[in-house]
Each structure stands twice: as C-alpha cells, then as structure tokens.
C-alpha cells in the first residue's frame, strides 16, 4: 500500500530530514512512526501527501510511483489519503456538519450525497447530536473526532495521522485511538506519527522508529521503547 525505497530528504543541501529510508507497509496495516522531535516523522507524512518531493529515492502510494505524478493528478492521490493532525484543522466559522461536508463539497459531490453521508459518519464517531455546533463549542476530543470524520468520509485507502493525540489528555486519547482502530478494522491502512508512548505500548502494533532521519527500528507488535 505504501512503499519507500531509499528515500532521502534534505533541506537546503545541509539539513538532513530523512536519510536512506526504506519502508514497506501492506494493506490494512496499522503502523506507528515514533521518534523524538526533529527525527523526520512529519517530513515522512508530507512526502506521502506529495506536499514535498524527496531529494532521492522513490515513493509508492496505493501502487503509484508518486514522483511521476503530474501536478494535476495530485488531488486525486490525496482523495485516497485521509489526514488527521494535532491541531484538528477545522474551520471555526463552519458548523460540525459543514466542516465534514466541506470535504465532499470541494471534490464536487452532489448535495444529496452530502446530506446522507455526513450525519451517518458523524453518528459513527459519536457526534450525531452535535451537527449544528461550532468547533469552539466542542471539547478537544470531540473536535478531533470531527476531523477524523472528515478524513474518513471519502473512504480513503490510507489514513495518515500526525500526532492526533498531541493536544489531548490520556483518557480522551484512548477514545481517539479506539476510533482509529475501528477505522483500521474496515481495511484502511493507518500510519500514525506519535510521541505518546502509553498509546503505542497499549496498542501493540508495528512500530517504526526514526532517529536523525534514519530508521533505527522496525518491529511488528512493538512498544514505544524510546528512552527505555
């Protein structure tokens, strides 16, 4: 589903963000990317979204060599990739419903599809009664659930989550992880960059550890292990 072959990313020729990284993630896998700040986790996510180009190496997403993608095809790549971020990226002047509908709106889905699918997915993430609330009326955990609903509404093949629990307390984080786990069980590949050792240790999924831009560990059913 995702394959990196000897990927290196340097900024301004001197700052090395990723160095000779090779990763192979199969369909339906749940993978944690762990490592200290500046180890290259976020760079990896940006490369998968083709927000940036690797300096060297090849990246395949859903079977496509994304380095060869023409610019006008990039949006169609991103429709296969759901994304969740630490800061939720919700629009404050839109309701919960409109925030989720936005993802369908901007790819040109007809209104009746939106009217049907948005309430469906929002009740799936447990927000069926908050359709008309605004983001600032919700707790952090609820906001992140809206964001997950938006990322999943197009049934992407892959979900990329960059520190999705970074702003949440441990109890709320567990709820979010349960949600991501459920999404994973539908067959969606989940890649999650995180600092949260408690979560990684509890989930017991594949762990890829980055340090200074290199893969220092790739372990099935691993633990966080960093600093331990």
């Amino acid at each position: 589903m995702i394959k990196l072959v000897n990927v290196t990313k340097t900024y301004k020729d001197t700052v090395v963000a990723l160095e000779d990284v090779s990763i192979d993630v199969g369909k339906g896998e749940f993978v944690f990317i762990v490592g200290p700040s500046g180890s290259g986790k976020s760079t990896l996510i940006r490369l998968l979204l083709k927000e940036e180009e690797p300096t060297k190496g090849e990246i395949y997403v859903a079977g496509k060599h994304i380095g060869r993608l023409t610019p006008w095809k990039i949006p169609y790549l991103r429709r296969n990739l759901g994304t969740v971020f630490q800061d939720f990226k919700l629009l404050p002047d839109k309701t919960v419903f409109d925030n989720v509908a936005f993802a369908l709106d901007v790819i040109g889905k007809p209104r009746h599809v939106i009217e049907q699918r948005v309430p469906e997915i929002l009740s799936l993430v447990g927000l069926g009664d908050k359709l008309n609330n605004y983001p600032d009326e919700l707790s952090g955990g609820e906001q992140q659930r809206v964001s997950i609903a938006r990322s999943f509404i197009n049934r992407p093949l892959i979900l990329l989550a960059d520190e999705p629990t970074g702003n949440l307390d441990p109890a709320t984080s567990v709820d979010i992880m349960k949600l991501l786990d459920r999404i994973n069980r539908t067959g969606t590949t989940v890649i999650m960059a995180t600092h949260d050792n408690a979560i990684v240790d509890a989930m017991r999924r594949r762990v890829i550890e980055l340090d200074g831009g290199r893969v220092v560990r790739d372990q099935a059913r691993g633990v966080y292990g960093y600093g331990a």
Partner: protein
Amino acid sequence: MALRVDYYFKETLQGLKRNGLVAFAAVSTAFIALFLVGGALLVQREVGLLIARTEANVEVSVFLRDDVSPSQQENLGNVLNQMPEVASVHYESKDEAYRRFQEIFKNQKALVENVSSDSLPASFRVKLKDPQKFDVVAARLTGQSGIDKIVDQRNILKRLFAVTRVFRVGVLAVAIVMLISSAALIGNTVRLAVFNRRKEIGIMRLVGATNWHIRLPFLIEGIIEGLLGAGAAILGLFIMKVAFIDPLRGKVGFLPLVGTPDVIFTVPWLLGLGVVVAAIASLFAMRQFLEV
C-alpha cells in the same frame, strides 16, 4: 465531476462581501478605465462620421487675383470644366463671398463691419469626382494667369483630424494606465481573498480538491468585479450621450453626431475587455499563492 453552480456562486458572493471596500476600489477603477476606453471608441466613431460627411462635400478653392480680367476668369472656368477629374465648378463672386462671410459670422458684428465685400477674393469652388486627385488638378492649373492661390480643403480637415487623433491617443493612454491600475487592484482583492481563506485552501488541498476547483471562486470574483466596472462604464456612456450629445443634435447642423447604435457598438468591447483584464489579473495574482 458534477458542476456545482450553487457552490461557486455562494463562495464568490461571500468573497465579495468580505472585501467590500477593496472590491469597490477595484470596481471603480475598472469603471473609470473602461469609461475612458468607451469614450475613445466614441471619439473614433465621431471622427469616422466627420470624415464620411466631409469627404463627400470637400471642395478645392481656386482663389482669383483682384486684378483678374473677365476673359481670364472665363478661360479658367472653361479649363476647369473640361478637366475629367472635375465633377462641378461654381463661381463665387466677391459679393457672394461677402454674403457667405456675413452669414458665417453673423454673431460677430465687429468683424462683419470691418470687412467690405471688396476685401474678399472671388473664387472657383471646384468639386472633384475623387478628392484624392487634388494634385493633378493643381498641377494643370499652375501657369494659368489670374490665380492667386489654390486651396485643398482636405488639408484643413487633415489638421482637424490630427488634433482629434492626439486627443484620442491621449484618452487611450490614460485609459491604458487606468486599466493597468484596475488590473492591479482586482489582482489585489483576489490576493486578499486568497489570503483570508488560506486555512480553507489548505484543507481543500488536503482533501483533494483540484486546483481549478480551488481557483474558480476567486477567478469568478475577479471577473465579476471587471464586469461590474464594464457595466458601470456602459451606463456612464449612455448617460453622457443623453446628457451632452443628444441636446446638441439638430442645433449644430453641419456636425454629424454619434448616436445610440454607436454606444451599443462599444458594449461588447467594454464587456470583453473587462472580463479579459480581470481574468488575467486574477490568474496572475493566484499563481503566486496557489501552488499544489
């Protein structure tokens, strides 16, 4: 992909509302620019009408010396009448010239009182079949006695047209400067709109909106500003016509005047120019901001 007209319409309307004042500046500059372009077009039409009217009536004047003898005068008349290029010849005596002078300057009594019929020259008024053939006629007449001066009225018109040309070029130059400023202002409103919505745009990109889907509302916003400017300019031209040109009609008999069809003629030009300038400005403004 289904074209969601309501989506684009809503986004555009919101954008215009959000930068009301800047949009107003952009629209009013576009209005002034296009109004001037329209004015220049109308001046051009007016000159065209003048040329058409006067070319038909243009004469060659052969002024006679005061000491011309009746036989010389008769001889000249015959020579002119026999030329193949000449359509008609009319002899204007000193008295006739004086009457015409009195008629033309009837409002300036002092001028009329100080000029006697004797001080005006007699002349042959010659109409040519082809006004371009002046040189041929003038060449044949040189050497004939009794002639004081041969004047081609087209030369006077040429000077008039030179003046109107300067005027037209001047108006067009100002119009171009204004068009560039309006393009800059429209580009600026678009840039501002993009900047105001950079967060939305970021999310749109993440969920896989195509570039055109992201750009179209901004492009439409720019084009609407251009169209509003063009519409105001067209309205302005019609008001100018009704207020200033129509009252002149019939009062200045010899002057043909531009009318409603001429103003209508400018409409597609102004609308087209407004759309093209606005679209180019908008796309240019977005290029800097909206990369994949």
